């Protein structure tokens, strides 16, 4: 027995070794390829940050996410437990197995298979039980039990996903199912193998010991021991051989992704290496399916992010990147925090007309300087009531303002960007940026959350504060530049995806609601997509209508008298499905405005001297 401990080997370990070595080499190759295909800037980020504290932070995050799956816990506890028990349990089995093998063999460096199959080489018989319990054997059994409990949940999820709080589970490719079967078999076979060895030797803890004892008492175990260990090694080999080509590639990839992300690398079309890594890091957990509003209206189409990522990763012929409203709900909930929206956008880059965008960005101010620019946006031009209301608000507040796109000819570029026409978007942005800066403006107010997000995220406008009109109106009210009388009606606020989730403007519209309506029936749900999004050029209008209708029903559960939104597109999407008035904030404000008589010049001058200090915003 001792001899075995010091020179542990049996031919069956070769199967595992082949699989594991293949996976290791292949994965190493992938990592090299990913780094190679990073842009020069990203490579620099990698080199500059690798020997900093960020590496340690990334290590901590890896433990939290790859092993404990903290974020999945936050989304769905049962699902979190399933992922945690499989990943953390297995990791602990490897770790404790390793420590045990080092402890008893006295060797630190030894082939990997030694610790993996340690129980075969050392059933524990040569050691006194008192030392052994509740030592390694107990903990090994404990974590094996944890893994098996997670496995049970995984099997339940496959067949009865609603028991795990998922309406739908992912539909898998054949090779994924094959690897899944291998994965499912690993732990029951391991349990059998360890129990058999323990049964023969009379060792083992509460799980393997008990089962081993039962097995040994009912049949002659000796001839079965080796074949079971062979099968264990075989399923391990199959799993490791499949791993790089299946969803299970996320196990090593996610850790690499966490490190790269910590170093500041982001999805961009210049860094295909990082894009490929992101695609590999998707665990296909499926939480993105239920949050997708299209899951109900298009149940037969596999358009949710995990299918989209699969289609990209395996280069399946598909136009799935067009069938998405880009509302961002999946990105927000994604436990791996994949940059799904940028992935969608760069996957759209092949559109033919993209290279020929000649849209002009600005309208020409005739060289005049203006302190406050109002940029309505093209969508707001389709809702003239918003422009009219904003005009009233500007006039009432006494601000001197300039209607930048009064002729409706300017484009912020975001529709181009969402359609994957990155170059067109950039050229439009550069023109507009230059003109904004030349205008001498300090404040840029827009009525459109789509423009707002573009100005905030993509534009570089030093010295210019960009505000959505909800923020601006709130400032005007708080600075007493306009006065409102709250309405007796019950209002509900629909949060536009580009404003709330997209740009993080969440509190101002809600504060404004409380100033405009005595009773607020705004639902507590995360901003839904109205169906009108510019992000989904591939979707049929009937589908968009279905999305609008179901979103409207969810938003108006509190039976409001009026629905208030902050985006012209949402207003237009809801108008045909709504039986209550749908207003933009500007209109709601004008309805509640305490109008002042036409202001004399002196008053106006006085008011203007009390302009809102932009820096105070």
């Amino acid at each position, binding site marked *: 027995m001792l001899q075995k401990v010091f020179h542990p080997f049996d031919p069956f370990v070769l199967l595992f070794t082949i699989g594991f070595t293949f996976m290791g080499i292949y994965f190493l190759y992938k990592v090299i390829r990913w780094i190679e295909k990073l842009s020069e800037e990203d490579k620099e980020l990698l080199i500059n940050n690798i020997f900093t504290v960020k590496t340690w932070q990334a290590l901590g995050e890896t433990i939290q996410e790859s092993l404990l799956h903290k974020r999945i816990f936050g989304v769905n506890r049962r699902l979190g437990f399933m992922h945690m028990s499989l990943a953390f349990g297995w990791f602990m089995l490897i770790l404790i197995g390793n420590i045990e093998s080092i402890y008893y063999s006295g060797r630190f460096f030894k082939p990997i298979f030694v610790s993996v199959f340690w129980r075969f080489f050392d059933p524990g018989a040569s050691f006194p039980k008192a030392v052994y319990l509740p030592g390694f054997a107990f903990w090994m059994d404990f974590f094996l039990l944890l893994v098996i409990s997670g496995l049970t949940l995984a099997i339940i999820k496959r067949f009865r996903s609603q028991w795990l709080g998922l309406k739908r589970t992912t539909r898998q490719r054949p090779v994924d199912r094959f690897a899944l079967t291998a994965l499912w078999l690993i732990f029951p076979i391991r349990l059998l193998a360890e129990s058999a060895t323990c049964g023969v030797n009379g060792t083992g803890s509460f799980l393997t010991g008990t089962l081993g004892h039962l097995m040994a008492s009912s049949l002659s175990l000796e001839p079965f021991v080796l074949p079971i260990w062979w099968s264990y090694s075989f399923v391990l080999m199959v799993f490791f051989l499949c791993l790089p080509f299946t969803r299970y590639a996320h196990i090593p990839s996610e850790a690499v992704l966490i490190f790269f992300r910590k170093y500041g690398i982001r999805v961009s079309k210049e860094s295909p290496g990082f894009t490929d890594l992101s695609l590999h890091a998707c665990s296909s957990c499926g939480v993105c399916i239920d949050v997708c509003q299209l899951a109900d209206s298009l149940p037969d189409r596999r358009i949710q992010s995990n299918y989209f990522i699969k289609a990209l990763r395996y280069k399946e012929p598909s136009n799935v990147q067009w069938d998405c409203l880009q509302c961002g709900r999946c990105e927000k909930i994604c436990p791996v925090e994949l940059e799904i929206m940028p992935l969608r956008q760069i996957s759209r880059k092949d559109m033919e007309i993209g290279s020929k965008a000649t849209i002009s960005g600005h309208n020409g101010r005739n060289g005049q300087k203006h302190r406050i620019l109002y940029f309505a946006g093209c969508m707001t*031009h*389709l*809702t*003239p*009531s918003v*422009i*009219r209301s904003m005009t009233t608000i500007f006039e009432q507040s006494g601000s001197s303002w300039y209607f930048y796109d009064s002729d*409706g000819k300017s484009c912020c570029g975001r529709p181009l960007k969402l359609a994957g026409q990155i170059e067109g978007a950039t050229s439009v942005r550069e023109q507009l940026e230059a003109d904004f800066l030349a205008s001498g403006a300090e404040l840029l107010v827009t009525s459109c959350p789509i423009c707002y997000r573009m100005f905030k995220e993509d534009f570089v406008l030093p010295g210019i504060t960009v505000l959505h009109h909800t923020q601006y109106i709130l400032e005007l009210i708080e600075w007493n530049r306009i006065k409102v009388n709250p309405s007796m009606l019950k209002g509900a606020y629909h949060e536009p995806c580009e404003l709330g989730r997209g740009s993080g403007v969440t509190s101002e519209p809600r504060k404004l609601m409380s100033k405009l309506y005595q009773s607020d029936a705004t639902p507590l749900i995360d901003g839904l997509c109205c169906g009108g999004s510019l992000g989904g050029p591939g979707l049929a*209008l*009937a589908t968009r*209508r279905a999305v609008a209708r179901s979103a409207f029903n969810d938003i108006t559960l509190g039976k409001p008298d009026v629905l208030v939104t902050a985006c012209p597109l949402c*207003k*237009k999407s809801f*108008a*045909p499905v709504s039986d209550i008035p749908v207003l933009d904030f500007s209109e709601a404000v004008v309805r509640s405005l305490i109008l002042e008589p036409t202001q004399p010049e002196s008053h106006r001058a006085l008011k203007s001297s009390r302009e809102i200090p932009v820096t105070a915003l």
Partner: protein
Amino acid sequence: MLTEKKHTEPNQFRIAVIGSGPAGISAAISAAAIGMEVDWYDKESRPGGKLNDYHQLFPDREFADLVLDDFTGKADSIRIKKHFGTTITRIESANGQNVLYSNTEVVGRCDSVIVATGFDFFDARIKEEFGYGIYDHVITSPDLEKILKTGHDQLKKGGIAPESMAFVHCVGSRDQQIGINYCSRLCCITGIKQAIEIRELFPSCKVYNFYIDIRAFGSGYEELYRQAQEKYNIHFIRGRVSEASENQQNRIVVKAEDTLMARPLKVTVDWLVLLVGMVPSCTQVSVNQAQCSDPETGFYQLQNPFAGSGLEKPGIFSAGACGGPMSIPEAAASGRSAAIEAWQYLTSR
């Protein structure tokens, strides 16, 4: 259908007609002419429905009032029991007997019902980009019809005749964006007729019609379309209007695309008229708590469109534009045919 052994007297049957537009009037007159006992309902206190608000009718330009007088004269000369000012909201149908409700109140019982509740005009405020309800000088075709009827001076600004006017076809019709995919069929000819009227009233006024197709299907319609172009010099521009805005002089700036010339264009007009489509009436009745509407269009769904006008339950028939867009002659014919259908049903059951 009629069996020998059963001898039936028409007056043993009681039939209800809901609605008093062209279809309802014709149905009531025809049912009474057959000899049935007719209960006639309308939500308004006088008959005629939307015909009351029209000025002249296409394509021959008869005055709507005269056409309506002709209808009501016939209805007055025959025995029909009128229950105007009563809104029927639902019908409970069981064992061949129908009970009519106005909300929760029972207002009548009968053997058969003809539903002729008509249509509503599309609410143009939903297409906000055209500015209806926002700009004073954007009106709809029924608005213009009322103006023409009550005095076209309302179209003048400060006593000056309008210089230009534009009509937008297919507002709330053939528009997937708002989920109305069907063609309302009659807005084209309405727009042509109204454009001609404007040219007659204000010969110096330029008139533009923005259309996607002209569907002049009825007898005399195509001729009127040709006249509009050749005799009245009305500009027909193929292309959808994208948006309308108001300039400093309160005139309407229309942005559109001329798809024949393949170029965008901008026209400034004094008035913009939206030719609104026909949508299901908001006062549709339910039968045994069920809405009998077609899921696609919202109009009543006919059980067998080839053989007649039967609705959800036997003995209940639809007539006129509550089953889909129809012209006045078509609606009147459909009312007469529903009366015959009802008579056949009652005598053969």
